[in-house]
Structures are given as C-alpha cells and as structure tokens.
C-alpha cells in the first residue's frame, strides 16, 4: 500500500510540478530565489530547490518562460522569470485539463457516497 501510494504521489507531483511553476509565474514576474522558496513552501508538493532549477531551465529552453538578470543591492544579481505567450497558453490548457479531471474525480466520488 505504502509503495503504491509513494509511487502514485511521485507520478502526480511529476504531472503537476511544471504546472505549479507556470501558475506561480502567471500573476507576476518573480526572481528565482523567491519563486523557488514559494514553491518549496507548498504543502504536499515536497520539492527541493535542486529539483526546481533544472525544471525552470527546461521550461526556459522549451520557450514557456523567459529570464533576465538584474543587479541587486542586497546580494548577488537576481534572475527574474516571466511567462511567455506560449507558456501562458500551455498553462491554461493544463489548468483546464486538471480542472476537468478534478471535477470528474469529484463526481465519481459523490456518486459512490451512499
């Protein structure tokens, strides 16, 4: 049961992690450290910074996010990330799909409640 659940959570996290990054960038531009801290703090997501940076890089390479460096007076230069038009489109499609999936799941759940 535990193994099965662990495997399943990995699969789910695998599915939603990139969507979480895109959603986090949907509202505003964020710099890497801030973005990573935000995502790490999401309960249940259980993700480390070491995992997030490669994903961010991959999204940038795929053209869904773009980044720019800006000097900071408080420490090292900051790297700001924003969603591209394509990234926004993909994010909406992913959200719609997830919403449908959730609704369907809930519907089944409700039908099975005696």
């Amino acid at each position, binding site marked *: 049961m535990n193994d099965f659940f662990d495997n399943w959570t*990995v699969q789910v*996290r*695998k*599915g939603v*992690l*990139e*969507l979480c990054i895109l959603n986090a960038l949907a509202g505003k531009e964020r710099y*890497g*450290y801030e973005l*990573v801290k935000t995502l790490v703090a999401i309960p249940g997501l259980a*993700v*480390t*910074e*070491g*995992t*997030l*940076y*490669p*994903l*961010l*890089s*991959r999204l*940038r*390479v*795929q053209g869904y996010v773009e980044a720019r460096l800006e000097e900071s007076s*408080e*420490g*090292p*230069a*900051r*790297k700001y990330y924003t969603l591209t038009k394509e990234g926004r489109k*993909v994010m*909406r*499609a*992913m959200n*719609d*799909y997830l919403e*449908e999936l959730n*609704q*369907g799941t809930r*519907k*089944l759940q409700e039908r099975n409640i005696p």
Partner: protein
Amino acid sequence: MSQWTETAKAKLEQYLAQMGKSLAGSGADANEVVEDLRRHVEEEAAARKLTVVTEQDLAQILARIGTPEAIALPGNESPAPPPPANRPKGGLLWKVGAGVLLIFGVLLPLGTVVFEFLTGACAGVLFDPIPTLAHAALVALVPLVNLAVWVAVCRGERRWRTALGWASGFTIGVALVYALLFLPATPFAVIGILFLGFGFVPLAPLASLICALILRNRLRGIGGEATPLPGLWRGLALAVVVLGVLALPMIITKVGLQMAASDSSTESTRGIRWLRDWGQNEELLRACYGRAGRSGGLYSWGKRVNPETARMIYYRVNGCAFNSIAPPKLYAGRVRWNLMEEEFTWDDDQAGDAVAGRVRGLSLASSRQDGIIYPDAALAYLEWTLEFKNDSRLQREARAQILLPPGAVVSRLTLWIDGEERDAAFGGRSQVKTAYKEVVQKQRDPVLVTTCGPDRVLVQCFPVSPDGGRMKLRLGITAPLSLTAPDAGCLRWPCFAERNFTIGDQLHHSLWVESSQPLETAGGKLTADQAKPGVYALRGQLRDGDLFAPINSVCARRPAEIASTWTRTTHEPENQIIRQTIVARPPTISDRVILVLDMTKGMEACLPAIQAALSALPADIEFALLLARDGYEEALPVQRVTPELAGKAAQWKFRTAGGQDNVPALIRAWELAAQTKAGVILWVHGPQPMLLDSAGELRQRFERSPNPPLLLDAQTQPGPNRILEMLDGLKPVRSIIRYGSLGDDLTRLFSGWSNRTGTVECVRERIGPDFKDTQTLGTETSTHLARLWAAEEVERLCAARHLSEATQLAARYQLVTPVSGAVVLETTAQYERAGLQPASPESVPIVPEPSGGMLLLLGLMLLAARRHK
C-alpha cells in the same frame, strides 16, 4: 557579501560539477542550472546572515537544496500532453450533420441579419427586429457563437469550453426570445418554403436556436460526460435581462400610456405623471400616429391605445400638440421596402375636418404675402400665396389651420391648375364641402377653405402630386386694422396655427405691404421704407415661428381726421352704399379682474412679463389669480389691488408641467367674475390643441347669462385653440390687441383701465341705394369695406338664426364665413354638378402692382378731395 572558506568553496564546486553532469540530457541547460544553484546558495548564505561560510554551513544549505529528483532528470523532458479530446466521430453522418449545423446555425442567421440590416425588409412589413445597434449586435452574436462552438466541436478543442458554455447559454436565450417573436410567422414561412421555395428568413431564429442547442450538447461531450458545461440557465437568463433592459424605455412608456388612457381619473393622472417623468417621447409620438415604435413592435402586449387618446395624452405630457413637431420615422424599411412602409403611412384624415398628423414627404416650398393698406378706411387686403411640395411616393393632401388677423375674412381663393389661375366658387358650407370630397375621391385638383373658429380658416388642397409634385394656391384676406388710436392701427400677419406639412428651417415667408401712410413694426425684423413720395412699404422675410409674434405686426399710421369712409357695393342687385364711421367708445370700467394663467409647459418663459405687468393694474379694482394646473388652483383669492401686489407678484414662483386643461379654471373664473357687474376674465395661455374637458358648460354660461363677464384672450404662442373655437361667435369673448411683447401689451391694457382710456372702433352700416348725397358720407374707399360689412352682417344673421339669408349674402360677397366656404374645382361640369358658380375674374379683389396700387389709391384720394370741395 559573505566570506567563504577554501574548503567550503571547493565543496561547492564539487557539488555543482556533479549536478552539471547529472543534468546532461535532461532537457535543461546544465550550465544555467549550475549558475542558478550557485546564485541560490549565495542568496541562502546572505539570508542566513553568514559573514563566513564554512564547510559545515554549506553542507546544511546543500542538504536543503538536495539533488534533482527523477522528474527533473533525463527522460522527463516535457510535460505530459493532455490526453486526446473526445472528438466527434468522423463518420459520414457527423460530416453531414456538421454541414447542416453550419448552414442553419451560422450561415442562415448571419445572412438574415445582414439582409435585414441592409434592406429593412421585415421592418418595412412586420416589425423591426433590430431597432437599435445593440439589438443588431445581440442578434449577430447568435451565429457567431454558434460558429465558435462548431469549430471547437469539430477540432475537439476543450480550451475555451467554459467560456463557450456561457456564450452559448446567452445566445440560446437571445435566439429563444426571437424564435418566440417570429413564432406567429413560422407556419407561413413553412408553407412558403414548401410551395414557393422561399421563406427561410422568418425561420432563421428558430433554426439558429435548434442548432445552438445541438452544438451545446456536442460541446458538453468534448469535456466528457461527467464534466458539466456551465452557463445555460444563467446565460439564458442574462440574455432575457439584457433584452428586457433594452426594451425598458418602451415598456415604461407602454405602461404609462395604458395608465393614462384609463377610465379612472386617478389612474389616468398617475399615468400622465409617470409619462412626464419616465416616458419615451418618440414612443408616445408613434402612438399618436397609430403605429408601434421600432422596438415597440418587438413586444406587442396590453390594450391598444387609439391614436385620438394617444394625442390627448401626448399633449398632457408634453404641453404641445403631437403635430407641432416632425412626424416620427416609421420603422426602418430601406431600398424597395421603403415604399411598402410609405403605403402604411396612409393619411387617414384626408378630406376630413381636422388638420391631424403630419404627413410624410409634404412640405411648404414657398410662401409670400403681398398686401395693401387703405389707411382712410383702416383696412387691408392681403394675398397669401402658398406652394406645397410632395416628396413622397403617394398623393398627399395639404391641410392647415390659418390664423387670420382679428376680424378678417377670406375673400378670394385661387388655385393654379396646369399653370393657369382658377378662382373659387363661394357657396354654402356643406355645399362646398361635398363638392370638395367628391373631387378628392376622383383624385382631381380641388382646394377648399372653410372657417374653423373665430378668425380661423381650414385650408385643404389635394392632390399634391407625388415624387416632387407641387401645388400652388392663393388666399385673399380682407382685414380691418385693429385701431389703437384714431391715427394708428395694427395688422397681424396671417399665420399657421396648425398644419400637416413641414416647413424647412431655410424657408422664410416673404412679406410686402404698402400704404399711403407710414408703416412700421416693433420687432425690427422687417424693413420700412419709402419708395417714392406718398408710397410707404414694409417688407422683409420672417421665419414661420416669427409670423405669429405680435411684435412683428404691421403698425400703420392713418389720417385721424378721416373718420367716415364709404364704398359702393357691386354684389347687390341694386348698388348699395356701405359706410364706415370711426367712433370713440367709452372705457371699459371693470370692477373685478380674474387672471387665468395657463400652467402648460412652455408658459414659464412668459411668467416674468405677466408678473411685471401687474404693477399697472388699476388700484380700485378687485383682482384674483387662478392657475390652470391639474384642475385649477386659486393662487391669489379675490382681493383689492394694493401697491404691494406687484411686489408680491414678483415673488411668485410657478411650476409648469405638461399640457393643462384650462376649462375648469375658466369656469371658476367665470363664477368669480360674474359675481360683480363688470367682471373681466383675462386668460393668458399657450396653444390649446386638445379639448380635454367639454367647453359646453362655459359656452352655456356666456350664452345664458344676462350680464356675462368679458373674456379677454391673450395667446402667447402660435397654435390652435380648441376652447376658443368652442366659444366662437360669443360677443363677450375677445382677443386683446397685440402688437408688442406680451408684457407691453398687458401693461398697455392695464394702463388703459387705470387711465380710463376709451377705445376706437369702426362701425359699418348699409345706407341703401337711394342715398344720393355721397359728399356728406366722407371719403370714398375700397370695396373691401363692403366685404367687411357683409362678414359682420353674416354674423348678425347667424346670431338671429337667419342661416339661409346669411349663406346667400356670404356667397354673393364671395366670403368664407361660418355658413359658407370657398372651393376650387377642376372642370365646369364639376361646378355644375355641385350647383356652384366660380367667381368671375372681374369680381375678385386683387393687390395692385406696387406702384399701380399707390397710383390707384392716390387717384381715389384726389377724387374724394374734389368731390368734397
């Protein structure tokens, strides 16, 4: 910035190198990730406020950062694509179905909207389905949303599913409302398609509704059966609300109209107030013409208010007659449907007794008044030439109520037929009316003039030919001057009180009047000049609204020493002599004055002048003020005039509203004025285009009372006066002499009472054919004097119930009186059939050519002078 120990630095580099290696083939940029991690570690150290970063600190930070999980490593380059959507099955049935949905759900309704927008076909025949741009946008949305849903369904695209769900719900609501509106036409459309092959247009709303429902069902399918599609009921409700909001002004007006037309006076008054506050004027105006408005046609319900009632309500709401403004555009038929629309604007009042509503396409093309004043006899003869133009595609009848100068009579009528002048036949009122109606029915060219109240005539001419056709006529008017002193008199220009044609902003009445004595006007809009010694002219142009204004009246000087004039009449079997004597009348000493103020909208502009004039009231009389508003209101009870009254009057604040019924206030004023021996009612008012209350009681009081009060009438704006029409022929009912501003004229009237100033009047009499010694009669003058005498004699005979004698006299003198009229027919046969004889060219009066007229006048004066010697 933190300091790093050497070992910490080395450890970090080792970690980053390992990380870079592990990322190879992950789809991420390894160098970029290494740099990002380095930056992250540095920020973390800064966040922890480490001044020196040791190996131990780094270990803690790196432990937190961790290593990339499997999800970020090779083999997981891109997010998993969404699973394939539930595309519709690509079979032949679906392909055919999709084609049908595209045709009936998109192309047919879209084509119908464009067709209706360009041609107004439905608007011209049934009702306007797209009365506003907002309606057009809503209707166009139905096929457009159907198209969007169709595309989404065909592609299995679920991205816009939710938004399309809402849009589809909304447009289903719009399509449903329109399908219901067109439901009565649906059976005819089906029959049309089956037997004639056309009739798809009325079916477009129903077709688009069915297609929208099918497409919505398909749209729900692409999300999976378990996923509901939002927005059906709420979208539908929203559509109904939006259409309701667009129709709200019309609904409010319809409700108000129904309330105002109620038999219950309380309900009716509430309806009028409702309409004054919230009503849509255009919708009301359409009701006056018996046609629903553009948007009104969309939702027909409730009891139909007939045009007559609607016209009353329009006046009570707006304070002006429905026909005093341009008619509303009826629907929106365009291209050839425009003709169909015009067919529906048939003039129901043709050949009737009322001016009624404005007729589309009919206008006044030109207007000129030429006149001559005979100062010795204190009279004038004016000719008013009018030309009408008809731009519509139907024959039209031009009708107008013309306000004549006080005491004037129509003495000539001419119509141009094929460029030739034809003079009228004068006969009994019913005789000429019957002749006119017969000829109108045969679509020939007649013109009719009859009286319609004191100093008012109704002119009717038909047909003004369609497509730019013109009709020209001329009215000859013999008018006495209103004498203001033995050496001066004034003449008000004849003007339109009511008309069924439009007068363009650019049109001016061309005026020219001549006299052997100086002429002037207070208004300053006309030019007075002296062309040559002894010839004075007043000329210029006035807009239609200015023609009524007393300030533009002609003020003519006259020789005060000539008090007696005479003329020979040729209208009698034996030459009769008619004499006129100017006599001074003692002042009217009134002991009580009741001022009745009309509180109709538009009167507010006159109130300051009236209030100011009250200071000239004589000090020894009683005064009361009645306001004609929602019945009557005794604003100032009967009291003696004091010097403080003018001061008090200046403080009065009156509120006008809509159109008011003046009859109750006049009846109350009659009661108050009749309580004394010499009571006077001064009625200051705007036009009274509708008789809201029967004036029969008022007339009865004036007729039956042995000592009725004097009713002095002062109308402030041009327009009909139905109350005065009802009081026609009553001696105690008179208009005050107007030749200045309202304030000046009232002040002059009050001052005359204060100073006990008498009046000057003309007395005309027939002194028989046997009178030989004409030298003793004074100055010989124009034969128009005989016409004025005859008009008065007709009035006397009518009062004595000698109607047959009165009719014969009027016909003999060729006058339009309450018992006679003038009609021009086209052929001799028509005259014979009607038992009428057209006036011979020798017997009709003319305005001589400018110089000729003066020569004639001078000749007459010389002749008279020689005889006098």
